[in-house]
């Protein structure tokens, strides 16, 4: 069923009005950022308890600050706005984000926001997989009280985040790595209008001798309740020279960290096989950006 219990559609001008609306409806208030996912959730009967929609588009929080130290991405920045950022074209370490932004259809790019797609805690999205590989940190705000958290700590279950009622993501922050670093993201999709069946992002940093100093491998698209980081794959790479054979070994290791699901879009066995293929491809692409 649709939003059968909906009583109120709030469009606050100020953050404190968010709190008022959320306080009134508690867990049954749903915050809307870009709103691009609401139809999908509604059609699947996942919003039948929602009593209030809180549209936060008037609150600001949009825009990106690029500084020597990295990027500060306002939570209400749309994918289309983020895609315009010149740094994305020139910085190999941001490759995963750049790649992930190429996939969504134009309608989604124009509506969906960075903060919204993180808070949705949907394992089938692309940007969270890319941002987790880039070790993204978040700033949040609840009634004026701010806190910082790692993106990994935001996800607490399928479509569930660890934010408190009324707590909003304000900013996603990416710190620029010191050394030679690059990242990449690849997605398996049924069509160009699809959520991920599997996606993978890889971030690697090399030391002066060309050995892997830092690695982060993340996967999404039905390989867990949320985006998964594969420490087993990362361990294979750390301190090593990155040969084709080693990349393959790392890719094969992701199976130890993921729990692929089976649904009508793909079997668990296919998702597992593709997680390995796409990890390998993401690693190869990232490595190619360092050469």
């Amino acid at each position, binding site marked *: 069923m649709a939003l059968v219990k909906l009583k109120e559609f709030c469009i606050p001008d100020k953050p404190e009005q968010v709190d008022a609306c959320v306080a009134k409806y508690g867990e049954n208030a749903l915050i809307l950022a870009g709103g691009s996912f609401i139809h999908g959730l509604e059609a699947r009967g996942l919003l039948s308890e929602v009593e209030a929609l809180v549209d936060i588009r008037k609150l600001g929080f949009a825009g990106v600050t690029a500084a020597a130290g990295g990027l500060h991405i306002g939570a209400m920045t749309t994918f289309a706005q983020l895609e315009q950022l010149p740094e994305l074209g020139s910085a190999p370490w941001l490759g995963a984000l750049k790649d992930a932004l190429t996939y969504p259809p134009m309608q989604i790019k124009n509506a969906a926001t960075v903060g919204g797609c993180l808070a949705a805690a949907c394992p089938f999205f692309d940007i969270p997989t890319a941002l987790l590989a880039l070790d993204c940190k978040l700033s949040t705000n609840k009634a004026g009280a701010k806190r910082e958290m790692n993106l990994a700590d935001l996800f607490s279950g399928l479509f569930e985040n660890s934010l408190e009622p009324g707590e909003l993501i304000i900013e996603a922050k990416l710190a620029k790595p010191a050394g030679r670093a690059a990242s990449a993201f690849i997605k398996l999709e049924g069509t160009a209008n699809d959520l991920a069946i599997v996606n993978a992002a890889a971030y690697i940093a090399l030391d002066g001798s060309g050995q892997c100093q830092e690695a982060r491998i993340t996967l999404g698209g039905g390989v867990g309740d949320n985006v998964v980081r594969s420490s087993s794959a990362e361990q294979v790479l750390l301190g090593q020279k990155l040969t084709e054979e080693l990349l393959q070994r790392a890719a094969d290791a992701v199976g130890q960290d993921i729990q692929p699901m089976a649904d009508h879009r793909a079997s668990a066995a*296919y998702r597992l096989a593709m997680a390995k293929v796409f990890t390998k491809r993401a690693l190869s692409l990232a490595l190619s950006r360092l050469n």
Partner: protein
Amino acid sequence: MTNLNVVGKSVLRQDAYEKVVGGKGFPVNISLPGMLHGKMLRSPYPHARILSIDTSRAEKLPGVKAVMTPKDVPQIIFNPIFFMPADSMAIHRDMLILSDTVRFAGQPVAAVAATTVAIAEQALSLIDVEYEELPAVFDPEDAMKEGAPEIHAGVKNNIRATPSFGAGDVEQGFKEADYVFEGTYETQRVHTCYMEPRVCVSDTDSSGHVTIYSSIAHLFGLRERLAYALGLPVSKVTAIQAPYTGGSFGSKLDLAYIEALSALLSAKTKKPVRLEHTRYEDFICNARHPMKVYLKTGVKKDGTITARYASTLCDTSAYSAHGPEVIMVHAYFGLMLGYRAPHTKWEGTVVYTNNMPGGAFRGYGAPQAAFAVESQIDEICEKLGFDPIEFRLKNTPRQGDPHPFNPEWKLGGYALDQCLTKGAERMGWSNRAKAGSASGTKKRGIGMAAHPIWVSGCVGFPDIYEHSGAIIRLNVDGTAYLSSATMDIGSGQNTTLCQIAAEELGLKFESVRMAPGNTDNLPFDAPTHASRVTYSSGNAVKVAAADAKKNLLEVAAIVMEANAADLEVRDGMITVKGAPAKAMSVADVVKRAESPFMVVGAQGPTPTTLKEKGTIMGISSVAPPANASPAVAEFVEVEVDTETGQVKVLRAVYAHDLGRVVNPAAAQGQVEGGLQQGIGYALMEQMLFDPETGACLTSDFLDYKMPTAVEMPSKIECIFIESNEPTGPYGAKSLSEACLIVPAPAIANAIYNAIGVRFHSLPITPEKILAALGKL
């Protein structure tokens, strides 16, 4: 035919702008004063008996104007198909508008009319239905087993029909063969995915006369079927023609629950009532029938086919509807007529299950057949070392041969040979590598498929309507109105028919406009289906235009003091042959005909005569003299990623003999749309259902995947061959459906060429490919 002025040109569609901006002509935009909104309550169970329905809570909800349950509707058993007579003995009637027995998950059990959509939706949740669940069966083979649930009382083993036909002695034919090939080929349930939802508004007056606006592909079919289901004479129903609709592809060729319910709700509330499907409701409204085809072919060493045997199992679903008809078209025009064989036999089985209803879909049974036939020919050629082009040339008919469906007709204009040879040349067929020989992770392959015999309408089909009518009226400004009950379903029917009318009348294209009408004032027309409009409606339009032109020239002859036989019309000017200086505009002749008895012009008053008087018009209601077969061959190149199983179609060459190209841009559009649906059928599209509840799992475009522009090949090359069909208007015959019949087998054959693996079931998903490669 070199002197054509309008036919053969890519004229701009007159309704193009309106349609792109979601114009008022779409039925979804119809709104009448005081209109109520209806919604249907659907069963969550695939098979159940309704014990009771309590509507009292819903009726009390403010804004609710009527609630309807099975006891409130006429219990008239009907078949929903538009294009056969409602009382035809050839169809099975087994449906009710609302029934006490539910046979598929999602079948409507009650309906509400309210002042807003939201109130109607809310009212549905206040209707209490007590069901007795019955055991359900979804697999057609299980449905035939002893002890399977009985879906329709008295239908033993759920077998609705077992048609068969043959010629010669098929056993003898296989004895004469040097090689015998056999295989089973399965196809899936897919939806047409038209853009505009099924929607209707009914307005029933106090005398019980129903006026209905609806997004359908057959105006007169709607009138006849709605009248039948409601127990009314056809003259008590008026169906209003929409100037254009947002797609059908066959899905709008049968009565939907919404049409009958809106008429009944309107009668009860005395207000117009609108119902519109959600996308979920569209998905479970109808779909292409899944079929399982067993095909056996006997071949001599020289490549001559000696015998063909086939059997088909068709899941007709919860209701008979199209099933028994679609399987016949599938068998004749899909499986058996295309390739010559002295000995043939076919046996079909149409089975009830508790699945959602089957419907019509572009190709009507032929894509299922072509996947079997064209895949098996590829297997034969591969095994025996024949070139697939040569093999097809050897076993298919030629121009001038008798039509295999009805030897009284000739294949008048028919150039399958050119489709095969020109297509092969354009694709670079001779450079095709041996199957499975490509190296690397991503392997490329080339494949092809043909469809030798198909229809241009339904002449020769015993139970299907096939005649068209047209009215042409000339205006005093020198323009013409064309009226026809042919429905434009998005592929440019209005434009094509206006081109034919303009050509025949000698007017510019811009001077002819399609003027919509309704079933009260238009002559009957068969539906927009069976690739028939250009050939069949076009024929009727040409006859009406010739009639109007004859009347025009008779008046012109009087005014111009010439012999009508000596006059000709071009670009709106009438001239005397051989004396071009003696000219008069069509507008001036029409003005004379429409004028009072004295015309006052620059030369002063001129009297006119009785013989000049009267609106200049032409009318027709005719069927074409034959059923011309198009011919088609398609070549595709694919790339298979052997690590992921993903297939990309890189290039397509489509060669089609359509007799005459009336509008090249529209024709190219048909080919591209057909390829898009064909790629979906071959590689990704599939309606899926919960195996326990029968609930549809793929009821929106997040879960039901059809190709987007990104999945389409960047190169789609069309070769249109103009064989000038003697029975068609300006030599034209059909195009539409063939465009979707050939892509799936062509793609399957190309995949085989790329990786050396043969697939016998659709869709060929990445997962199937990877499993076949031993990587899963």
